[in-house]
């Protein structure tokens, strides 16, 4: 049984339908990437899974339970943590407080604690008393990832974590992935950077206009297939 799956997931904002029957599967221990252009529905998919958007109860299943209708705080408590697009750090909290608040709804013992998060991103320990928003973009992204890890999640959702960051910083951040996987989390990584997505993932889904247009292991994909799935079949 898959750890997390969506079945015929549809989502809409008022009159605008953003997802048209999306099926994705995440097996335990796996990392999947979701790629696609702006407006493809990647972030909507993430917001649906983490509970910020309500869906049909049975359209999202986690660990055998239908979670489509649950609120974000209930889903977080079950072990799905989110690194939201744009980091969304709490401006009135320090770096350390941002990390601590990450375990508010799920304070369970596990690999991840302040100590191990500081071990993963040592720069955060130096800056732990700074206001979170005083950090550089890359450091803020580290805080956002650390904050999600603090709850020792079973599934980690990463929405556009490389957006707006320098390539060298992106490499630093992705260097954390093996330890995150080793600690027992399965990952869904949303990326616009196709090269990065193919490197990190066991399987890749490509989305366009609210539908999955291509899926498979990175080795199976040709540049042309990705190009077609990303932008639509060549006219």
């Amino acid at each position, binding site marked *: 049984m898959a750890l997390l799956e969506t079945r015929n997931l549809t989502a809409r904002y008022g009159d605008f339908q953003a997802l048209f029957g999306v099926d994705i599967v995440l097996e335990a221990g796996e990392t999947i990437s979701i790629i696609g252009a702006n407006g493809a529905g990647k972030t909507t998919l993430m917001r649906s899974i983490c509970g910020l958007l309500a869906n049909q109860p049975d359209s999202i299943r986690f660990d055998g339970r239908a979670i489509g209708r649950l609120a*974000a705080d209930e889903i977080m408590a079950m072990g799905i943590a989110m690194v*939201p697009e744009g980091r969304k750090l709490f*401006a*009135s909290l320090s770096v350390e407080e941002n990390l*601590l*608040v990450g*375990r508010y*709804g799920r304070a369970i013992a596990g690999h991840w604690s302040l100590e191990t998060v500081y071990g993963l991103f040592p720069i955060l320990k130096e800056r732990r008393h700074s206001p979170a928003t005083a950090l550089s973009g890359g450091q803020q992204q580290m805080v956002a990832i650390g904050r999600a890890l603090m709850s020792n999640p079973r599934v980690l959702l990463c929405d556009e974590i490389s957006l707006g960051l320098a390539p060298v910083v992106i490499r630093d951040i992705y260097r954390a992935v093996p330890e995150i996987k080793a600690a027992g989390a399965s990952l869904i990584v949303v990326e616009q950077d196709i090269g990065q997505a193919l490197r990190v993932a066991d399987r890749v889904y490509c989305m366009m206009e609210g539908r999955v247009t291509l899926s498979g292991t990175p080795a199976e994909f040709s540049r042309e297939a990705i190009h077609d799935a990303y932008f639509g079949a060549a006219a």
Partner: protein
Amino acid sequence: MIWFDTILQGVLLGGLYALFAAGLSLVFGVMRLVNLAHGDFIVAAAYLILLMVTMTGMSPFLAVLIAAPAMFAFGWALQTFMLNRVIGDDVLPPLLVTFGLSVVLQNVLLESFSADSQRLPSGPISTASLNLGGINLGVMPLLTFGSAVVVIIALNQIFYRTALGRAFRATSDDPSTASLMGIRPAGIFAIATGIAFVIVTIAALYLGMRSSFDPNIGPARLIYAFEAVIIGGLGSFWGTLAGGVIIGVAQTLGSAVNPEWQILAGHVAFLLVLLVRPRGLFPRAVD
């Protein structure tokens, strides 16, 4: 010396205004909600204490200890079943609802307790005073100010030293991201209002013991409280205490010049601070 004495009395009076304001400051800081019935809830709590005291003959201080948990539960329920339904991007619905609550409360109190002025029995403590180097300070004003300082310290401890306080601030920053941390914003709002109602009960004790009250004095208490919060800067508890002190000092100085100027002087001080520091004395860095 007489001026120093006047200012000192004003500072102590400011403690009472800070108690009126602390609950308002907390609720505004967490959920950007201005409860227009705040003053009326203080008056209602004073009647609750009065009822307990007259029915059982217990001390008002003991009555507060018993009333506080009940008022926490009441505030929690008010937030959960009423205010959470109207809170949102639009600031108008909660203002209208709490304005309506204010009208309803005043009339319920008028029906139940009549328009007669009441006072909480405070015994010999109300006239006791301490002589400190030639200045007489009333025990009751000192107790009020001390309670205000304790309340402000307690709020700061909760806000900046506990997991609940982190959840308060995170929810205030961004409720939807807070829910990704497993925080249920509606539940956090209910706890904040519950704590505010505990402070309302403490404020009611000193309101009722220091002066007489009737069902219609709530809105004026709200205005003092609101001015203290604004002077201090939204979201700063020490600022709220400072705001209360500024209004208190302005009022006693005003009344020393001319007794008719007491209330006016407080409002003028408020306007002057707004003129010079539109965001208050200690605004939070982030809004």
